[in-house]
């Protein structure tokens, strides 16, 4: 028989248990398999009751974030061979309530994301017929890194500040706010600043830096937050010294 590897999966079935438990499954050890493949194997061939989110299998949709051996990972980009000979422990993302098995409740994140208006805000809002907004490659380069975010919430799972204080807006939302602030077509900087300059906005961050370490897309939310702090501080002093100047 071909080699197998043990996957210990966190199970939580709210209708029958109060606390999550671990359940072990043996899956074929296939060098080309990622953790998500193993979970799908279990779902298809061993235990159909296992619940987890996934979609694209190629690191684009951001659905399959889970805790693999204690680290928040995209399970579609985490190879079994990396953990050979196992066992591999798969748990739901930390810092979020668990709905069932590996499925977390993400309403909180969705609301935070929306609160920072991650879209192009215009004061004039011209009709589409008037043509597109033009942008140079240099202007694109300024925010491109932050636009790679796929909302996988892995940075939230790694952020101790979010874990300790769920009011904190959190890494991805702030990075995306910065992505639009740096966009030459955007005019919504001030509206976002009003949300993020509160204590639960950028000021809650203590620059642990783990969000940047774990990000599968190299977005660097920690950098975005510090840059935001610097900008907010400059603006604070400006409005303090020159209260008549319009921000």
């Amino acid at each position: 028989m071909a080699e197998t590897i043990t996957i210990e999966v966190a199970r939580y079935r709210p209708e029958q248990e109060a606390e999550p438990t671990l359940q072990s499954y043996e899956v074929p050890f296939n060098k080309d398999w990622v953790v998500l493949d193993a979970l799908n194997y279990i779902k298809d061939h061993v235990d159909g009751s296992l619940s987890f989110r996934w979609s694209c299998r190629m690191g684009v949709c951001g659905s399959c974030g889970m805790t693999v051996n204690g680290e928040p990972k995209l399970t579609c980009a985490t190879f079994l061979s990396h953990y050979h000979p196992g066992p591999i422990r798969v748990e739901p993302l930390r810092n979020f309530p668990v709905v069932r098995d590996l499925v977390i409740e993400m309403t909180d994140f969705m609301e935070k994301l929306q609160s920072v208006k991650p879209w192009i805000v215009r004061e004039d809002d011209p009709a589409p017929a008037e043509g597109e907004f033009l942008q140079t490659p240099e202007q694109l380069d300024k925010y491109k890194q932050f636009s790679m975010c796929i909302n996988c919430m892995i940075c939230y799972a790694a952020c101790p500040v979010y874990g300790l204080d769920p009011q904190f807006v959190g890494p991805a939302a702030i990075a995306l706010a910065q992505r639009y602030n740096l966009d030459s077509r955007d005019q919504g900087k001030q509206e976002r600043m009003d949300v993020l300059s509160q204590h639960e906005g950028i000021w809650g961050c203590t620059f642990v830096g783990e969000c940047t370490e774990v990000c599968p897309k190299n977005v660097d939310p920690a950098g975005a937050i510090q840059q935001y702090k610097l900008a907010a501080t400059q603006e604070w002093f400006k409005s303090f010294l020159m209260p008549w100047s319009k921000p």
Partner: protein
Amino acid sequence: MKPSTAYSQYHPKWHRTRVSTLWWSRKWSYLKFMLRELSSVFVAFYVVILLLQLHALGRGPEAYLEFQLWLQNPLLVVLNGIGFLFVLFHAVTWFNLTPKAMAVRLRGRRLPNVLVAAPNYAVWLAVSALIVFLLMRQG
């Protein structure tokens, strides 16, 4: 940030794990963060020593000599040794993190982090050398 809607906050069946008080001991990078933050205690500790030195300096040569002898207390030397390591850690982490907070751009391109951090080290070296020179200069 306004609290989330009631729908997402008080669901009885969801399982929530509380962050343990010792969360920072779970992982090396978290521990490093905690040590970095604790370096501030030794920053304040040094300021206290500096204030005591100024106090002794203001009271005259005898008081200053007394202060210098007090600094030779072995317990204080050990504490200062630990403090030195911590402020060194503070300096290095601080210099290395500046490029993250400042996206320096030159001719439309972002400068690599190393180039932004390097001047910090140059200034650090120069300032330290200047202080040693001022204090050790003869006559």
